């Protein structure tokens, strides 16, 4: 089936999302918002699942931790997946737990053999528990930590080889990381094993003015940047179409604004380059 473009689902868009009959439209939700016992929010997701495919995107598995995934969290994720039967399930290459605290961001780490071994173990545990393939997303990076033994692409490729997991290639995150750390985004995208890429993410970022260290921040609070659209078109041209998500998590615009961004991604996926 031809891969299509989807939208990050926002509850304020529920009525329009339910009513939309755009061909190939699917929605992605943050798993943790729905890992609850019951109630109207879960019912809304079930209603949306009745009309559209759903992708479940976790923001809390902490799969790059030296600790194993939290069993309760994993059990709740499995319950949600069993309820919704998603088209894809994913989370991020990051660690998020320290001293009993959950950090709601994606923390970096030196890409060592030990880190890879922990991550391989954790992804394997998750896939066995869910009985599904997990997709792992490249995060945005803000500093080049000392101690790396391999590039991010090498780490992700080895992770996919060792576990059979798929990858989400977040083009905005590659762009943000490349800008912040000073590497070549196109080369970084080329280094990823295209066969493992099962989904592409597109989002907006924000420039953070700082006299000493100006950075791009992965805020998901702005339209997708033109430079990211260009990278995306080049990527699809090279590896072929993949399900592509338009993400927006802050400063949420009207549904139709996101639909317009989705149409632009759709034009890329179907080879209508004139629209890019």
């Amino acid at each position: 089936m031809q891969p299509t473009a989807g939208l990050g689902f926002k509850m304020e868009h529920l009525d329009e999302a339910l009513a939309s009959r755009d061909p190939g439209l699917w929605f992605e939700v943050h798993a943790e918002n729905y890992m609850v016992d019951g109630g109207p929010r879960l019912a809304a997701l079930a209603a949306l699942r009745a009309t559209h495919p759903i992708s479940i995107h976790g923001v809390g598995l902490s799969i790059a931790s030296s600790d194993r995934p939290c069993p309760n969290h994993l059990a709740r994720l499995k319950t949600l997946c069993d309820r919704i039967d998603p088209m894809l399930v994913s989370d991020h290459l990051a660690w998020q737990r320290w001293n009993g605290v959950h950090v709601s961001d994606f923390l970096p780490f030196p890409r060592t053999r030990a880190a890879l071994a922990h991550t391989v173990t954790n992804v394997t545990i998750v896939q066995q528990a869910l009985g599904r393939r997990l997709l792992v997303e490249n995060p945005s990076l803000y500093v080049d930590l000392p101690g790396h033994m391999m590039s991010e692409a090498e780490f992700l490729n080895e992770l996919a080889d060792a576990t059979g997991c798929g990858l989400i290639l977040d083009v905005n995150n590659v762009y943000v990381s490349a800008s912040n750390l000073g590497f070549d985004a196109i080369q970084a995208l080329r280094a990823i094993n295209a066969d493992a890429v099962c989904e592409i993410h597109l989002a907006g970022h924000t420039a953070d003015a700082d006299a000493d260290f100006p950075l791009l921040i992965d805020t998901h609070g702005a339209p997708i940047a033109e430079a990211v659209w260009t990278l995306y078109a080049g990527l699809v041209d090279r590896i072929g179409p993949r399900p592509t998500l338009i993400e927006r998590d802050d400063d949420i615009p009207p549904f139709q604004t996101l639909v317009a961004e989705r149409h632009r991604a759709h034009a890329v996926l179907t080879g209508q380059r004139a629209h890019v």
Partner: protein
Amino acid sequence: MRFSRGNVRMSDHAIFEHAFGAALAGQASVWSTDPRIRRALTIHRNTSHKAAQDALAANYPVIVQLVGEEAFAACAAAFVEERPPAEPRLCLYGDGFGDFLRDYAPFVELGWLGNVAALERLVVETMFAADHCVFDGAALDLESALPLHAATRIGRLSGPAVSIWRAHQPDGDPDALASLEWIDEIALVTRPAGSVMVTSIDAIAADFLDSCNAGRALGEAASMAVENGADLTALFAVLIGAGAFAAIDSGD
């Protein structure tokens, strides 16, 4: 050390996490000396704190209205610092915010805020509780216990927290605050027909619900309520109308 696990030696990855996490928490660490790393730490700290503060504001919308967004943001920042999220489900974040507010110095004159926050916490619990069919009043069995719905919460609150909460709902009447009676209220928080409902009930009704929840037979619980002066017809009308009980043979 928390990182030793069986016969597996502590990995360099675990050592890194321990030190980087300390730096993120603002403690002295080998990772807090390099200015570029400090800058990245600040971004990660800001992003995670913003997520927790936004979640707190989403779960305590009446408190936001009562104190204003600016004062709430300062208070939320202090709460997140003191009690950061312990797990990733931020839709449930904020347990204990009511107690925190009672001790929060800038709001010391507003001692009743904590009770409104306690009610908002019950609303969150009700919102995400398990699904069951609501008992509709048919086939009352006096010999059996009548279980409360998983979403039902009872809050014995100091002051008129229910009235204050209700006046700040989208369909609430802000003028109602002008005639506010400063009495202790008991909140019944339920979820009939898929949305949260907050009802003010009296102590007899609350005690009756406690009896039901403790597993007493309905007849016994009702007799006690009558001894306390309850009008059973009115009591059942309120409680069943609010969807306080679960249908006995219900599932998901």
